[in-house]
């Protein structure tokens, strides 16, 4: 009940505060660093999938499998998955902290965290264990790659 433990106004910061890992600071840095990378990764992704093929209907399993036969696209998609999902989750965390309160806020934060972890694991497993030769294809170039791999 005494005031003796309260620091006087304008006291220097306590030393342990300086050394502590500040998650909000690193979140702030992450949003900007990942944002710059995502501009390149997302527009590259959109251009290759929507513009480059010349028609939307090219988007089917064989197209995706053909892409993922190239390790560069696996790395590209893994980067997209991790950077975009964590960027999005951190943004949604900001909105939840702004607009939700009490137990509802806690619930939403846990749901968000669980969703993020599950989708990161799922997406990573799909990208790293995908076998582009499991399905038949009428893409000759692609069929040759699979025939060579066997």
């Amino acid at each position, binding site marked *: 009940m005494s005031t003796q433990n309260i620091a006087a106004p304008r006291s220097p910061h306590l030393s342990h505060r300086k050394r502590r890992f500040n998650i909000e600071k690193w979140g702030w840095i992450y949003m*900007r660093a990942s*944002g*710059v990378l995502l501009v390149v990764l997302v527009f590259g992704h959109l251009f290759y999938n*929507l513009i480059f093929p010349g028609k939307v209907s090219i*988007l089917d399993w064989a197209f*995706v499998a053909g892409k993922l036969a190239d390790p560069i696209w696996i790395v590209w998609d893994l980067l997209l*998955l991790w950077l975009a999902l964590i960027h999005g989750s951190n943004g*949604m965390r900001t909105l939840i902290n702004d607009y939700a309160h009490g137990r509802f806020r806690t619930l939403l934060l846990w749901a968000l965290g669980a969703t993020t972890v599950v989708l990161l694991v799922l*997406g990573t497993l799909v990208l790293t264990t995908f076998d582009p030769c*499991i399905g038949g294809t009428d893409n000759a170039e692609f069929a040759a790659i699979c025939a060579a791999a066997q």
Partner: protein
Amino acid sequence: MTSQAAPPESPAASVPLPKKRKLPAGTLYRGREGMWSWVLHRITGTAIFFFLLVHILDTSLIRISPEAYDAVIGTYKTPIMGLGETALVAAIGLHAFNGLRIIFIDLFSWGPRAQKAMFWVVIGLWIVLLIGFVPRHLMVVFGGE
């Protein structure tokens, strides 16, 4: 008792009333470029986030079978989903360009002073992006192959 005090002079007669403003007082933030870029960033970010959740799930179907993936992607090849893709690209473009604007505001000494101008640059770049993407995409969506 009967003496009557002189009626007090009305203060309004001597003190001039403040001039009535024609417009509400201007604000630096509310209702201006800064507020709307913030609102749009939140709305587009939320929309993109929920798209991303669905997009990871549907793409994961490639691991199950070609038939499962093609069946789900096939349901996307409708005019309504084509319009949805247009809205998605519009949202991503706005979020991306405005995100770069936020980075410039934070990193450079001239950033905060130029934030309004940069908002209109964002809108300009966004319109250029949409002019490049939308007509071609809608021709693909509504024109068949």
